[in-house]
């Protein structure tokens, strides 16, 4: 009854539910408090001066802040994976509102470390406050410290760097705690000495905008630094005595890099070359045909001379009109984008003339043609070896060859004797001319008969020709029985006989009569080949019988 009265008494009192204890009981009974709404709803608490109201006001604010931070963690996680631009902007706005950074919202994307660095001091203050005696009971009800610690742990787990590092100001010496300005700004010294392009040391005073260098005469001079054409580019150092750049205003380093790095052919080039091999062959044929016609045909000749071009230029004009070349040109334009430009360039460079496909290709061929061709790797089976590398093998082959020649050497003919052959080959191998080598070979051959070679020398001394001296040699050698060349029987008729002469190595023939033959047989200067047909041999025997040639001398005809 009394209570009812009291209630009805306070019914019209507006501040009936506004005292701190009532609010506290309301908040404690509510399981999911919206702290932001609580701030608005119980805003009058800040006007109350009693301690319990002030404490409660602090708690409401702290809890709102902590719930904000919980949201920040969610938003940041979502921002990483979000693809929707509108939602992204929304998230950025939320983050911006809580963390209050400087800078633009549209690109705002704080890292976990930044978030931690922004909030950790406040949160730690909250934890400290909550642990004090003042908030002892409120902390038990709302568990402020626990929530704050939870947020802090969550943030530090999300970071990619250790907590200590994040908490340390990068511009503060972590050991002494003294701020270091050198870390903050890199200070250039006023005077620096650097090597220039040529390797000479140049001292630059940035303060006076001057530099010390060596001029063309070798004297040390001080010059003012000239600003570049752009007024904003202060202190651009241009040393006109030792320029870093080439005349065209570009440094050579990028050009070199461009040359080295670009336009190396790909594997596709080899396939293209193989594929268009017949085409290049045909176009070469056409070009050669036109060159040939220009030098032989009268109409072509006149056309060429009227044009005032070189032979190749005119031939190129004619070849470019060939339907094969036109079709090829069109096809290259079709497939141009399917291949790398340098691969197409390699193909075009195989042609004997310049075939224009487009300006880009022409430029590439002009500027990088050599380099593109250099980058072609030859097939593994082919090597360009210096001819001297075969010297050893050739020498071995030569020695073996000489040994074989000695085996098949034939004493019957002078130029088939082993002395002659060996000497001739050695002379040529030693770089003598053929005539000199032959002379040396005959010299070696004459050693077969000492008396003959003496007669040869005497004949030469007495003023006879070389040919007659050689005849003297044969006569003397035959007389002393040291050497006799033997002619080969080739054919015979009733009137004459054909012999293959020994002096020519059985290459030339000589016609003699039967009487001469009989004399030569007696001297042992003729033989019949052992492989001659037996019918021919018997015919010869009968013929000689008819001529009354003594049959006991017939063995002199054997090859021996």
């Amino acid at each position, binding site marked *: 009854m009394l209570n009812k009265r009291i209630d009805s008494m306070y019914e019209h009192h507006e501040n009936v539910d506004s005292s701190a204890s009532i609010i506290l009981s309301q908040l404690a009974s509510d399981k999911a408090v919206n702290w932001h709404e609580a701030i608005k709803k119980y805003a009058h608490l800040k006007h109350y001066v009693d301690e319990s109201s002030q404490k409660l006001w602090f708690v409401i604010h702290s809890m709102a802040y902590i719930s904000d931070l919980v949201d920040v963690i969610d938003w940041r996680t979502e921002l990483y994976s979000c693809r929707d631009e509108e939602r992204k902007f929304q998230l950025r706005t939320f983050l911006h509102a809580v963390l209050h950074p400087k800078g633009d919202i549209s690109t705002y994307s704080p890292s976990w470390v930044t978030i931690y660095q922004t909030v950790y001091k406040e949160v730690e203050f909250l934890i400290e406050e909550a642990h004090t005696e003042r908030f002892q009971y409120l902390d038990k009800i709302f568990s402020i410290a626990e929530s704050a610690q939870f947020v802090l742990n969550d943030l530090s787990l999300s970071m990619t760097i250790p907590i200590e590092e994040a908490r340390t100001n990068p511009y503060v010496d972590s050991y002494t705690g003294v701020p270091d300005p050198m870390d903050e700004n890199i200070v250039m010294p006023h005077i620096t000495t650097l090597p220039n392009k040529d390797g000479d040391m140049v001292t630059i005073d940035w303060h006076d905008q001057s530099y010390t260098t060596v001029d063309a005469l070798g004297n040390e001079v001080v010059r003012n630094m000239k600003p570049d054409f752009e007024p904003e580019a202060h202190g651009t150092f241009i040393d006109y005595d030792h320029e870093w750049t080439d005349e065209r205003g570009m440094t050579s380093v990028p050009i070199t890099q461009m040359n080295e790095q670009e336009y190396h052919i790909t594997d596709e080039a080899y396939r293209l070359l193989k594929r*268009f091999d*017949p085409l290049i062959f045909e176009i070469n044929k056409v070009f050669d045909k036109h060159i040939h016609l220009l030098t032989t045909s009268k109409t072509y000749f006149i056309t060429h001379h009227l044009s005032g071009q070189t032979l190749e230029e005119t031939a190129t004009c004619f070849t470019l009109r060939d339907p094969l070349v036109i*079709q090829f040109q069109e096809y290259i334009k079709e497939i141009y984008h399917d291949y790398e430009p340098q691969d197409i360039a390699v193909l075009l460079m195989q042609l004997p003339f310049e075939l224009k496909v487009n300006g880009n290709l022409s430029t590439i061929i002009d500027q990088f043609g050599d380099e593109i061709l250099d980058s072609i790797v030859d097939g593994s089976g082919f090597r360009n070896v210096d001819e001297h590398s075969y010297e050893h093998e050739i020498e071995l082959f030569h020695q073996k060859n000489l040994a074989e020649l000695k085996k098949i050497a034939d004493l019957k003919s002078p130029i088939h004797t082993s002395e002659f052959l060996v000497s001739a080959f050695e002379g040529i191998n030693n770089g003598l001319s053929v005539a000199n080598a032959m002379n040396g070979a005959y010299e070696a051959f004459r050693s077969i008969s000492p008396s003959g070679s003496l007669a040869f020398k005497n004949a030469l001394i007495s003023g006879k020709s070389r040919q007659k001296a050689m005849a003297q040699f044969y006569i003397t050698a035959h007389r002393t029985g040291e050497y006799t060349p033997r002619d080969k029987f080739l054919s015979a008729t009733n009137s004459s006989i054909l012999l293959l002469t020994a002096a020519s190595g059985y290459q030339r023939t000589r016609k003699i009569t039967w009487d001469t033959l009989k004399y030569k047989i007696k001297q042992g200067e003729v033989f019949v080949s052992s492989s001659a047909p037996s019918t021919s041999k018997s015919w010869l025997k009968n013929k000689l019988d008819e001529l009354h040639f003594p049959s006991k001398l017939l063995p002199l005809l054997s090859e021996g």
Partner: protein
Amino acid sequence: MIVLTGGSTVFNRTWHACDKPLRNHGRRSQLQFTIDSKVGQYLVSHGLVNRTFSYITFKVHDQEILILQSRNYYKAPVSDEKLISSIMAWFSDHHHGAIVVKSPYSDIGNAVERLKKIRQVIAIYPNLISTLASPYGDGIAPLTSEYPFITQPSVFSRLSFIL
């Protein structure tokens, strides 16, 4: 339309692998010479000598010419696979139109069987994807002898061979 079959060999800028060249009183006809030079030029300029071209169409004096590839090299035997794929390439590019192909085979007794098989393979091909692909897996073609009912009269009417 004149349909010719052959390989991709070229000699002296001239097509040198026609299976059954056009003849006039027993000699190679003038049209055949023109065709040879045109095809040779095409093959050389497109880098297709001794390679695969499937089919070539062009016009000589308002006369349409179709060249179907049946082999690669000079004097190589006719390859059924190459001929089938060339004809299929033409059919897939030309949805309406019929061709009469002169048999590229020199052996008449064998030719009939081989041509019959080629026709069957080409006829069942459009059906494979729509009706038979799923039960047998992608790209697995059932044998025509096993499934004689899989034939397409439309393709049969569009493709015919003469000996």
